[in-house]
């Protein structure tokens, strides 16, 4: 850690000062408002709100669907990253570019598009309906929306690691008698593991807080397909600011824990692969 005496470049005070003021005004002070407001609720009252049956049902849906979506994305995201790095196929550059679509496409647009596809009379829904599979307006619809928004997180964390991976390791494994599966299982996969877990955690974190792409397809049936962010909106619409704040605190604490976990995973990835964060 350099002392302030040997700083060659100018602008330290100005740039750091501006950064801290702007960060405090836009992010830290407003976030502190949530915790202050929540502390005005008594402990018992806070507990009543965050453990009421409809809110608990929303946790189960939000966390359950988000975990499942992140798991599905980890499997298919890894395959997609593998295909993009290791194979040549027509349209590859288009696929590579469109993987980022969920980052760029407004969530409300994704929401109504997915609903149009999976509604009982929709493009896909009309073929699933006779099979007895209902997607739109059920928890399954929530899952579909969360898969959509989470996919690029897994692909974009795994892909660069896979690209940087030297072929020498796999060649060495083969020359030592490993078959292709063993080389993947024991050589490639351990290197990808931290990045894959980072991608999983990012997709999960994003999915838990997601609102726009979910509410159209979820149908928002009480106790069945209401996600946690929607519970906050519902409380706000009833002018129950304290109730909305209590649920927000639960979500924030969870997000902060995940953020720390993701930071730790990224440090692990950097150590495992020698890449800068």
């Amino acid at each position, binding site marked *: 850690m350099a002392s302030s005496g040997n700083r060659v470049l100018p602008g330290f005070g100005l740039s750091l000062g501006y950064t801290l003021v702007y960060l405090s005004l836009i992010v830290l002070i407003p*976030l502190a408002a949530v915790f202050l407001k929540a502390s005005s609720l008594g402990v018992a009252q806070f507990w009543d709100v965050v453990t009421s049956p409809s809110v608990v049902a929303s946790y189960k849906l939000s966390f359950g669907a988000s975990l499942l979506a992140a798991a599905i994305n980890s499997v298919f995201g890894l395959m997609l990253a593998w295909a993009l790095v290791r*194979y040549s196929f027509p349209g590859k550059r288009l696929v590579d*570019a469109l993987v980022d679509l969920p980052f*760029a*496409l407004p969530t409300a647009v994704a929401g109504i598009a997915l609903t149009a*596809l999976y509604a009982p009379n929709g493009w896909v829904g009309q073929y699933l309906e006779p099979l007895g599979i209902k997607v739109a307006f059920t928890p399954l619809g929530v899952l579909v929306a969360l898969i959509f928004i989470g996919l*690029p997180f897994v692909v974009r964390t795994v892909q660069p690691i896979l*690209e940087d991976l030297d072929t020498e390791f796999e060649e060495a494994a083969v020359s030592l008698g490993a078959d292709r599966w063993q080389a993947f299982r024991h050589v490639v996969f351990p290197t990808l593991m931290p990045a894959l877990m980072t991608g999983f955690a990012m997709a999960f974190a994003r999915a838990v807080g997601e609102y726009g792409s979910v509410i159209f397809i979820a149908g928002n049936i009480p106790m069945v397909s209401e996600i946690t962010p*929607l519970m906050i909106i519902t409380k706000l619409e009833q002018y129950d600011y304290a109730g909305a704040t209590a649920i927000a605190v639960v979500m924030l604490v969870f997000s902060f824990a995940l953020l720390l976990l993701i930071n730790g995973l990224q440090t692990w990835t950097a150590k495992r692969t020698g890449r*800068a964060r």
Partner: protein
Amino acid sequence: MAGAAGVLHGAADHAARFESKAATREPALVKWTILALSLSFFAVFLLLPLVAVFVEALRKGWETYIAALVEPDAVAAIKLTVTAALISVPLNLVFGVAAAWAITKFEFRGKHLLLTFIDLPFSVSPVVAGLIYVLVFGAQGWFGPWLSDHDVKIIFAVPGIVLATVFVTFPFVARELIPLMEAQGREEEEAAVVLGARGWQILWYVTLPNVKWGLLYGVILCNARAMGEFGAVSVVSGHIRGLTNTMPLHVEILYNEYQFAAAFAVASVLALLALVTLVIKVWVEHKAGAAGAEA
């Protein structure tokens, strides 16, 4: 963290490097299975929704499509969306450059914590992002009574929409610039100091030209999110037609009123914006790759 994770990786096709060697090549059956599974997944979950937006938008013909876009409420929504982006993107651009300068050019205590704080808005649910401003500026909030005494409206008005947009797009530019400027090091700037350059000259003539493509990508990603934000803006907007409706909120209202063709028409404009964003991204990667190859 979303964009920073590895956006500027090379676009060139290196697959031949793996497929030419027996040691890094899978049996044909495995290869085709992986390709079939991953591309079907891609087609169903990413491609199909995108196609659906445009097909649904044009289902009732071009006349309905155009009518949905020139209708006064739609025009007001487009104007508000552009206004919010024009204010929030430059604010976060200036912040991103300042934060990246402080973090990459100097060593100081608590740098890691600062990086984590900058990432915070990415991990906060958009709905919570809207709520925090309601708690600060809303009628029952900290400044609520003072604001209503002075006849200033922030929540359910344009300033609230801008604030919520600034919050959700907060880290984009900083997150693109920090890894790039970290990789550039400090030598060039230090050489400029020795040659007598002043602070702003160094920033303008040395640092920014080196990171211009990453900066541009950060800005367009920031802009795409600013124009498309739904959850946070929805909480602070109040949904007043023609006044506080952004394009995504207008889409929601039309959709809930069963005006599907009109909803998809406005949505298709946002989808086009997303596609333009992705095209610029590919172009920027190409430019950055070419610049990297020269260096």
